């Protein structure tokens, strides 16, 4: 187990707001190994972003409470004091966000924003840091980086901004990169370029990546393991092959069926999962997916299912997955997708 980089155990994130108490992440456990890319998939509001920001404790103290463990390099990140967590942020663990325009500070030059982390964590002089910043811009594939470093975020195109943000995140050669929907705001060509870049960086720098997305296509391209979240819980965890060959949870199956197929029947309706994600203030008592699940019965409504280890790499949280599996020979065409 020495190659485990990040080990999350039974993580819970509670928010205390004016409208009441909400548990946005409810007992999440998974790990990331060195140099591994793990995808976290789920609909909007499933808690994947909250979970990712919990790792670096980015929520304002006082409104939030964390439970469980986030072990990184032998330390529980939830137990660190402010100074200690600041040394981890941007240094050992970095983050990139969805919208590159709003996440780069509009009044600082791109170079300065990259150099800031380097000065902060590596005791570098301003000049060294600026030289390194230019090198990082070159590494992420920005043309004429010397010129770009002196420019402001609004001078750059969307794809360039995302590259610049990746450069900021990579500044201190982190061991783990958390990418929270980094390609969602970009058009498809740029998206492919950014994914390529992340893949290369993963190989070059041997950096673990948690890739958060709602796009299973992207997951298939990039990740070796996937965690599927629904309403603050992990419903299924699997290797990428297992996930597309033999999804166990009805929710995962629904997600995979919802992917449009290029060679599919054009007149056929796109598959959708019935219903919507309920608000976190009204979480069902039993299985959280029961209300939308075509296989749900009284047992599902009454009590939450346990996590079952189906293989060494595949876990599922469902009462009926074995029964469903028998009836599900029909979705075999899905794995042609990846």
């Amino acid at each position, binding site marked *: 187990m020495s190659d485990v980089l990040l080990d999350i155990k039974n993580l819970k994130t509670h928010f205390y707001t004016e409208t009441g108490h909400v548990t946005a992440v409810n007992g999440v456990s998974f790990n990331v190994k060195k140099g591994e890319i793990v995808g976290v998939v789920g609909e909007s509001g499933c808690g994947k972003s909250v979970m990712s920001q919990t790792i670096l404790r980015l929520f304002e103290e006082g409104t939030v409470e964390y439970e469980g463990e986030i072990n990184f390099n032998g330390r529980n990140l939830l137990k660190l004091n402010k100074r200690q967590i*600041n040394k981890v*942020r941007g240094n050992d663990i970095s983050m990139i966000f969805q919208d590159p325009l*709003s996440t780069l*500070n*509009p*009044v*600082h030059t791109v170079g300065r924003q990259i150099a*800031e982390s380097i000065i*902060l964590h590596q005791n570098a002089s301003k000049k060294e840091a600026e030289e390194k910043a230019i090198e990082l811009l070159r590494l992420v594939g920005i043309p004429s980086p010397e010129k770009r470093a002196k420019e402001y975020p609004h001078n750059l195109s969307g794809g360039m901004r995302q590259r610049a943000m990746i450069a900021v995140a990579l500044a201190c050669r982190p061991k783990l990169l958390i990418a929270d929907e980094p390609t969602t705001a970009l058009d498809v060509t740029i998206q492919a370029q950014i994914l390529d870049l992340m893949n290369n960086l993963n190989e070059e720098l041997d950096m673990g990546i948690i890739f958060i997305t709602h796009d299973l296509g992207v997951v298939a391209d990039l990740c070796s393991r996937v965690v599927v979240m629904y309403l603050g819980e992990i419903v299924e965890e699997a290797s990428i092959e297992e996930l597309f060959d033999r999804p166990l949870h009805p929710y995962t199956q629904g997600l995979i069926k919802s992917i449009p197929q290029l060679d599919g029947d054009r007149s056929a309706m796109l598959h959708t999962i019935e219903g919507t994600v309920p608000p976190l203030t009204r979480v069902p008592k039993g299985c959280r997916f029961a209300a939308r699940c075509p296989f749900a019965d009284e047992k599902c409504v009454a009590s939450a299912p346990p996590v079952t280890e189906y293989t060494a790499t595949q876990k599922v949280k469902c009462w009926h997955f074995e029964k469903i599996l028998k009836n599900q020979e029909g979705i075999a065409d899905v794995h042609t997708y990846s």
Partner: protein
Amino acid sequence: MWSYIIKRLFSLIPVLFIVSIVIFSIIHLTPGDPTTYMLGEEATPEQIADAKKQLGLDQPIHVQYFNWVKKAAIGDLGSSYHMNMSVNDAIMSHIGPTLSLAILAEIVALLIAIPLGIIAAIKRGTATDQTVMGFSLLGMAIPSFLLALFLVLLIGVKLQWLPVAGYRPLDSGLWNHIKYLIMPAISLGSIQAALIARMTRSSMLEVLNTNYIKMARAKGVVERRIIYGHALQNAFLPILTVIGITFGGLVTGAVVTETIFNIPGIGSLIINSVARRDYTVIQGIVLFVTFVYVMLNLVIDILYGVIDPRVRLEEK
């Protein structure tokens, strides 16, 4: 950049033109005229007619206007009916105290408002926030003359730390100069501070919720640097706007405060001139004030670009 400034300066012309027509009409339409004040109650109609002729007030109003505009266009605002000096000199001799007071009051306002606004934003929803906002509300509600009177009573009369009223020019020594301005500056500044603190708070709150602040946190930047290095500069545009507005109000004369503290500034000049129906001085001051406002706005607009690269003007 330069072409922009020149363009803005040219836009002054229509503004000044319109303002001059409005102020000229209002003054000449209000009852009372300077001759009664000059000659006293017992003046005979002949004497009054004579004086009017001397001042050119017997001519039709549009002729008077054009005579005045012709001179004003080359910077000559005429001469005062009462003070035995040109209007230009009158304004110049009164602008010093007003400018000193305005700058000092704005400094007081910023020293109070910016830190308090930032603290309120960081500790939003807490007792600290509510206290600061409570004082800010109080500051906006209290008229500055009331605060001035309290200050005079407490610091001037009871404690006798500072002179009650009056003014000493800068040549009489810096401390001597400032000593007389402290109380008026506090009474004006703390009222302005109320407004600026509110703006600082709301603007900071907005910025602190943005993604780039989250990104800065994720980079491991310490909280203090996030506030001063990342958030404040972004939050400063709306604050700067309020500073411009408040400073404009101060430069163009805090009439009541200047009167209370007996400061010979623009405010007291305009009050006296209105009372004496000193037409040329009133017109001159209004024109001057308009000019100052437009220039101040120009300076603020240029400062926007210094603070935020997105509104920076292209160098061409």
